[in-house]
């Protein structure tokens, strides 16, 4: 159990069953690749990122968080034609950061989850942008307006998604 800055109480550290650990990220990557084919607006969402944040905040272990982010990111990279590591690096950073904050903050209520998801979405996009521009020389355009709207959309979806995924949590 860890002690949070916000509540002053000890918070639970959760774990997940092996099927949930493997299948939930796989389903997220699958939906990310399939749903926009039918509903184009869905491409604004980043389901693998939301799953990374959820697992990292629930487990509250920095190593588990960064490894989860790295694996999900590499899996996401593998489906694109771009070099593997762009999403991997971004989600590693997000996984580490989310688990670090998860240890210190009570991220169980909807408001905190909304703000954290918005924050980590922007962090993810900034890291991705820097790596893509700096290491891979991809031409990318940055628009704060677009990123903030996308971040808000992801944050709202995240709050709903986390409520569903809470059912898979197991107390340690």
């Amino acid at each position: 159990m860890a002690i949070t800055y916000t509540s002053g109480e000890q918070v639970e550290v959760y774990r997940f069953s092996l099927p949930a650990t493997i299948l939930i990220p796989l389903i997220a990557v699958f939906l990310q690749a399939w749903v926009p084919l039918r509903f184009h607006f869905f491409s604004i969402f980043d389901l693998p990122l939301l799953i990374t944040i959820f697992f990292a905040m629930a487990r509250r272990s920095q190593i588990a968080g960064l490894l989860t982010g790295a694996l999900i990111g590499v899996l996401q990279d593998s489906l694109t034609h771009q070099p593997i590591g762009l999403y991997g690096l971004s989600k590693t950073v997000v996984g580490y950061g989310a688990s670090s904050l998860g240890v210190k903050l009570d991220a169980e209520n909807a408001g905190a989850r909304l703000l954290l998801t918005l924050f980590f979405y922007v962090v993810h996009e900034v890291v991705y942008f820097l790596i893509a521009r700096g290491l891979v020389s991809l031409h990318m355009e940055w628009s704060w307006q677009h990123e903030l709207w996308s971040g808000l959309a992801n944050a709202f979806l995240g709050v709903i998604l986390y409520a569903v995924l809470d059912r898979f949590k197991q107390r340690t």
Partner: protein
Amino acid sequence: MDVLGRYKNLIVLAAVLFAQILGLAVQVKRSTDPESSRLIRVWAVGAVTPFEKALVWIQSSTGNLWHSYLYLRGVRVENRQLKEQIERMRLEQVRLSQDADQARRLQALLAFKEQFISQTMAAQVIGLSGSEQSRSVYIDKGEKDGIKPDMAVITADGVVGKVLHVYGSTSLVLLISDQSSGVGAILEKSRLQGILRGTPAGEVTLEKIMSDETVLPGEPVLTSGGDRIFPKGLSIGTVTRVVPGSESFLTIRVKPAADLSKLEEVLVVTRIDERQAEPEQSGPMRAVDILAERLPSVPPKPENAPAGTATAKPPGTTQNPSASALSGTAAPAVSGANSAAGPDAKPKTPAPASGGPPVARKPAATGPGASTAGGSPQVKISQKTAKPPAEPKPQPPPEDNPQ
């Protein structure tokens, strides 16, 4: 040891980041070698695409059941309208075929070699890459089906992209809207050539056209054939906006003819042939021939039929002598495809939009679905529209001309 334990998390973070940056650097350095990360990609694609295939199959089966058997409202009216449209198009084809014959004769005189699509394979789009920065789609055909990298991918509307990576039973297709794609393009009216590229925002621009040239919005853009991937003359899209760009070049925005955000079925061009143009051997079909086929006719009386009784023969066996003599062709609406024409009959002309060598010879006139193997979107359309029963099948041009 105490320091290691204290900073264990940070050390693991640094190690994981370092490993990925190293891997990224290796891939960037070997950008021409796709094998450097092949194994991981094969695993990932193998884990995700079977689910996509299954879902697409369920979806298309349900859709087919609904549209082909249950929801048939308005099909009769649509069928009648399509028949009328076919008649109009057949008359139009007569005019166009005469122009095409003339063009072929001129090309033969110039020993002109042309490319044409000789084989395509229909494929279903089963998923996307899942990233806004990677504009690519997965199709359900791969190495087992004969797909190879750099094959062109098109739809009936226009160019879609090219095959980038090929896996066992799936392939990754790079769309023309991706920033790493490039297509040789030509403006249809002004004949200016440039390179079509995608932008980070997913738009398509035509580059390398000098700013002192005049390009107007609305002008169609076609493939130039210069990239050796796409045959010349395929539709790419239409110019929507022209603005001065950098380094004395124009920036020309192009709206793709194919709707890249709603791809369902595509055609992979599996073979492009090149041959010298040959003049058409068969005689021209006249408008009067087409009109003669449409004339109402009285079927010949059977020999044992009682006088004053008109008995219709089964379709496919009756030949209208007057129409046959006038037109020189087997009247398809009356006699069927394989009816024997009279001895003085001219060779049959292939039906419009049915494909076959005479149509496939000219890329611009071919259309993406004209010569397909293994099914095409046109096959799907024909299922829905219910062809007339006696529509002649496409036939190759005759070896010998009786006239």
